[in-house]
């Protein structure tokens, strides 16, 4: 049974009981009476003109109820990009329509252009084979540089270019940065790619749509990290219905990592089909469909330069990036390579001048969007790799060059040259902590031991920062966001004293049901078992922007805390009346309302009861009931930061890299449940190691996805990773949210890839292969072997 604990306790997770006994309720576990099944037809070519779709034969097959194509949805709106970005010249970005189903043209392998609905899934799938689609294959746009150079072969003819925008950050810095580079005593240059990844949450996307012909109400059960955002996008933008006609329920969701933030066409398609057929319609993606149609992550090609003094003081940094957005703009795709990437290019360092240029490019590939870390891993990888190279060129120690340039605690609040204000931090403390935990002093002995076994051992560091808790709405509004990014919570004290908290955050692995209850329990001085967390249902929750960008605690947790404050404030009024004292004299502590300096007190339960049975109650001045809602809009981003060390062993004969040790010293501000925080870091580091060593999404020159299954796409497995050492004791609490929290969900995926690659380069250098200055991720045995033998 879950232990009753408050803030800071490693309370075991209450949700585990249902997950461990097979009683979880994921979308595919839900079945509605009379439901039909959908199977989507997906393009086999990367670029093609749809000349016609003949569904006659399919419609005659057993069990088939309907075949819908792009034409059936042509009257609906487009699925929008959430951020409007302007180019350097002031022009707004190009935003071609993203339809529910492809119409006229298919633009990537996997682009859905029709859907078959049948009595059973197998019947729908069988009938799909009988749909005759006449599609003329056109040359594919795959390579980003070529896409920018070629103005004749376009992903979207109507916009006249393959470039979505050309963004400069901050444009006013550009001249000064150029000047600094001209005069710099030393300049380090590096070209690198940030490999394209498939998020691969273990639960594939799924949707179950229901329509009530009596009321005209739609209901969608779906795999969403943010059901209200889905409701907004589907109702207001795509299907054009009042939001109050659509309920979106995200039940248990098997991981998201960004890929389930977005609205995808299949969701609107099954909702529409449910209405047309007047019966529920279910669709569950096969894993192959996930590979083809989930939003992918990363995919940057970057040139980065660092200007320094001869002794390694950073003077200026600039980067030029091509970022792939794929065939259509997914909801966060324009924010990810810009405001989640460019604004982080100062890192945790004092670098006085920074300029970032990002060109986003349409290609005939799956859409690319935010994946765990979203823009910040790309920024961190560029910065931490160029620092590593610079240190080698100048003959400086990896820790020393960082220490020399890290911001110091006395510099906060610190305004970066790329537009953020870091409120607090202590980067020396995490670097010191990591140095101790990773036993950097003992590295040489471990290296010698590895050498005896014929292995090259290397050490790689990374000191990283991220911006979380997305985001102050007024700030993101200025930057082009089309939504606000506050969050909301309702705290409902039931008449018998137990509590339901309706939160706008959504838990798909993060353990909110446990942690949020710990927080409310501590704040109200009651057992956590009396608190239930309700999430993932737009009909129950006031509003919410959901969970991504490590924002749940920092934003939704703050809203919840504000609502609890209102409960306490009202409780004091009730207590003052019952205790015949002045409200100002009422103190609330450990679940009791008492009159200061006396032993007169009422328990929380008595106050709750009185609110619902208001016999002795100030009815003339106070409403009965005890339920409060609060909305919270953050004053700033939060800035988690940390120092990571990776040790690898490289087999010089095969190029195989093994992670020998991985150590993380993080600053997440106040920690609510250390066990869960550790788990978040483990998971992030696991994904980061996956990116660094194993994972790659590969399209051939015709736009065919070569890595479309778990047989071709190397997911990290248990024996690819070690036990990690993690620590979060160096806390500088966030200064602007009530819990002092910063967020921990993405940290591991942000800080780890450069540490791994730096370690591999270090191993090669120490092994005498000093001609290797960089290897692109994934650092596969073939690439390492080729690099070693490239001289």
């Amino acid at each position, binding site marked *: 049974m879950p232990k009753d604990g408050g803030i800071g306790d490693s309370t075991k997770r209450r949700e585990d009981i249902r997950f461990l*006994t097979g009683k979880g309720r994921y979308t595919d576990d839900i079945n509605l009476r009379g439901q039909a099944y959908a199977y989507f037809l997906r393009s086999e070519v990367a670029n093609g003109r749809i000349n016609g779709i003949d569904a006659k034969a399919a419609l005659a097959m057993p069990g088939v109820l309907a075949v819908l194509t792009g034409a059936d949805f042509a009257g609906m709106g487009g699925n929008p990009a959430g951020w409007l970005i302007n180019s350097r010249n002031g022009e707004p970005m190009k935003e071609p329509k993203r339809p529910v189903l492809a119409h006229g043209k298919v633009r990537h392998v996997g682009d859905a252009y029709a859907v078959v609905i049948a009595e059973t899934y197998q019947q729908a799938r069988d009938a799909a084979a009988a749909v005759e689609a006449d599609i003329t294959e056109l040359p594919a746009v795959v390579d980003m540089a070529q896409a920018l150079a070629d103005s004749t072969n376009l992903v979207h003819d109507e916009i006249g270019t393959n470039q979505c925008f050309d963004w400069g950050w901050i444009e006013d810095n550009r001249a000064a940065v150029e000047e600094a580079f001209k005069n710099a005593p030393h300049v380090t240059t590096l070209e690198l790619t940030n490999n394209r990844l498939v998020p691969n949450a*273990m639960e594939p996307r799924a949707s179950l749509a229901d329509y009530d012909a009596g009321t005209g109400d739609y209901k969608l059960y779906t795999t969403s990290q943010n059901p209200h955002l889905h409701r907004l996008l589907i109702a207001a933008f795509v299907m054009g219905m009042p939001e109050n006609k659509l309920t979106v329920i995200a039940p248990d969701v*098997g991981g998201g990592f960004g890929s389930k933030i977005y609205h995808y066409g299949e969701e609107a398609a099954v909702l529409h089909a449910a209405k047309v057929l007047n019966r529920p319609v279910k669709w569950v993606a096969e894993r*192959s469909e996930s590979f083809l149609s989930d939003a992918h992550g990363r995919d940057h090609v970057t040139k980065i330069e660092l200007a320094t003094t001869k002794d390694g003081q950073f003077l200026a940094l600039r980067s030029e990036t091509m970022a792939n957005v794929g065939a259509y703009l997914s909801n966060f795709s324009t924010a990810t390579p810009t405001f989640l990437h460019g604004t982080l290019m100062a890192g945790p360092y004092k670098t006085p001048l920074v300029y970032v240029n990002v060109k986003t490019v349409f290609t005939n590939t799956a859409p690319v969007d935010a994946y765990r870390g979203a823009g910040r891993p790309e920024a961190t990888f560029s910065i931490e790799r160029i620092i590593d190279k610079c240190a080698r060129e100048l003959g400086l120690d990896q820790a020393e060059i960082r220490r020399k340039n890290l911001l110091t605690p006395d510099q906060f609040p610190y305004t970066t040259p790329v537009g953020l204000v870091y409120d607090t931090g202590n980067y020396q403390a995490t670097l010191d902590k990591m140095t101790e935990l990773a036993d950097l002093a003992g590295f040489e002995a471990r290296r010698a031991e590895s050498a005896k076994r014929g292995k090259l051992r290397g050490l790689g560091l990374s000191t990283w920062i991220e911006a979380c808790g997305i985001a102050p709405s007024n700030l993101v509004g200025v930057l082009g966001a089309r939504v606000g990014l506050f969050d909301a919570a309702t705290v409902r004290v039931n008449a018998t004293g137990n509590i339901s908290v309706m939160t706008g955050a959504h838990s798909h*692995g993060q353990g909110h049901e446990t942690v949020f209850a710990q927080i409310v329990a501590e704040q109200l001085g009651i057992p956590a078992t009396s608190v239930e967390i309700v999430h993932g249902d737009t009909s129950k929750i006031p509003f919410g922007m959901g969970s991504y960008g490590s924002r749940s605690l920092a934003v939704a947790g703050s809203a919840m805390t504000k609502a609890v404050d209102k409960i306490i404030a009202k409780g004091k009024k009730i207590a003052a009346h019952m205790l015949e004292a002045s409200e100002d004299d009422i103190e609330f502590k450990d679940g009791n309302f008492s009159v200061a300096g006396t032993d007169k007190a009422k328990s929380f339960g008595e106050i709750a009861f009185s609110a619902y049975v208001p016999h002795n109650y100030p009815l003339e001045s106070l409403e009965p009931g005890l339920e409060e809602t609060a909305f919270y809009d953050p004053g700033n981003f939060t800035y988690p930061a940390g120092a990571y060390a990776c040790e690898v062993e490289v087999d010089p004969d095969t190029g195989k890299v093994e992670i020998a040790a991985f150590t993380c010293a993080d600053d997440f501000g106040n920690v609510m449940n250390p066990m869960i925080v550790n788990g978040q870091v483990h*998971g992030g580091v696991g994904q980061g190691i996956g990116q660094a060593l194993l994972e790659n999404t590969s399209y051939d020159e015709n736009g065919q996805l070569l890595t479309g299954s778990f047989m071709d796409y190397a997911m990290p497995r248990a024996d690819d990773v070690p036990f990690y050492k993690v620590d979060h004791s160096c806390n500088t609490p966030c200064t602007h949210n009530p819990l002092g929290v910063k967020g921990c969900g993405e940290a591991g995926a942000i800080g780890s890839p450069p540490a791994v690659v730096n370690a591999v380069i270090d191993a090669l250098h120490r092994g005498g292969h000093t001609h290797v200055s960089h290897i692109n991720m994934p650092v596969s045995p073939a690439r390492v072997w080729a690099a070693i033998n490239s001289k």
Partner: protein
Amino acid sequence: MTKTSMTVNGKAVSAETEGRTLLSAYLREGLGLTGTHIGCDTSQCGACVVHVDGKAVKSCSVFAQDVEGADVTTIEGMANADGSLGTIQQAFQDHHGLQCGFCTPGMVMSSAALLAENPTPTEAEVRHYLEGNICRCTGYHNIVKAVMAASGQAVPAE
């Protein structure tokens, strides 16, 4: 359609199947045992692992009709008779060996098969055995810890 019978979690059951009905679909759709999850279509992820006559089997890789009459155990059959968590399940909770819970049923079933075969596996043996089970959430740290702990062995502190 053919009526296919077997024993699942100690109960005699039967449901209609086609020749192509997978054991995973038989369990989920035929019997409503949705604890067994489908995470892939290439028999790679291990979310669907169940025990067939005591052996760990990816239920997406066998046809229901091919295991007619077999004795099958799913995650729904792993708790103690009084409903409390079994040793491995409890270790997964104690050591935070799950996050989103989607890989979890398969992980528990594979771990149970490992410990039946090898009651005190080394860390390397655990990692190697679980190669066929993909978890995207945990980085495997706490899963390996949970399996080691369930076998009564010492585990790292954090």
